[in-house]
């Protein structure tokens, strides 16, 4: 009996919140696109396809890792032969 009661309680909760939310945030009425977006798409395609002087975006974390690895090699040059051995 208890699970059924819980289920009833959950669906009652959901109904309450559903009704309440719709008062504050009604469903979107107009979902029609008012203009053709192809010109914007073309613009984005040409912008993104243009050759960039800067290499592809690299996350900051990768730069940090590369810097750490470089610093480690500078401080402990003895690990270079070990790295060659492993690779």
């Amino acid at each position: 009996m208890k699970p059924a009661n819980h289920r009833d309680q959950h669906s009652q909760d959901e109904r309450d919140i559903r009704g309440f939310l719709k008062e504050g945030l009604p469903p979107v009425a107009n979902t029609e696109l008012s203009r053709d977006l192809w010109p914007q798409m073309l613009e984005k395609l040409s912008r993104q396809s243009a050759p960039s002087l800067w290499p592809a975006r690299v996350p900051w974390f990768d730069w940090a890792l590369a810097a750490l690895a470089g610093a480690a090699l500078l401080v402990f040059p003895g690990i270079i032969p070990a790295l060659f051995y492993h690779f």
Partner: protein
Amino acid sequence: MDLLERFASGDLEAFEALFQQHQREVYAWIIRIVRDSGIAEDLTVETFWRIYRSQARFDPAGSFQAWARRIATNAALDHLRRDRRETELPADLPAAVCPDSAVQHDVRRKIQQAFQLLPAKYRLLATLALIEDEPYNHIAAATGLSANLVKIRVFRAVRMLRKTLGAMGITPGAAS
């Protein structure tokens, strides 16, 4: 070679044809999540940009519509994650249902605030399930989650909303 095969092999004309066929549908899906026409337009273009970039991974035997919807959902989710500051409904968005006049402006604002406080992944699911009444299996297909997980997350979102609204002095069951 059919349109989807041509698209998968990198044909720009095929991409344009698919864009023209599906842009309205993608926009209609996104605006229901982000609730702002300008942002929905930008995200529609972003969705097709992602589609264009991953065209080589598209299986022409599959459904372009389902694939596009999934990418659109991810683009909208990324937007929700980036932008948690907005707390008001955009002024240009017409409402389908005329809000009950008895609901005070302050209460509506609190409902919107409480909703904005939900983590993005819960806000997305709650918007589609609780506000837009989208069936759980449609949401599952668009998000790549199982229908059960969607239900569980919607339930968690309901609990979080109830708690936040309670802290604001609003009890949904009693107010409606």
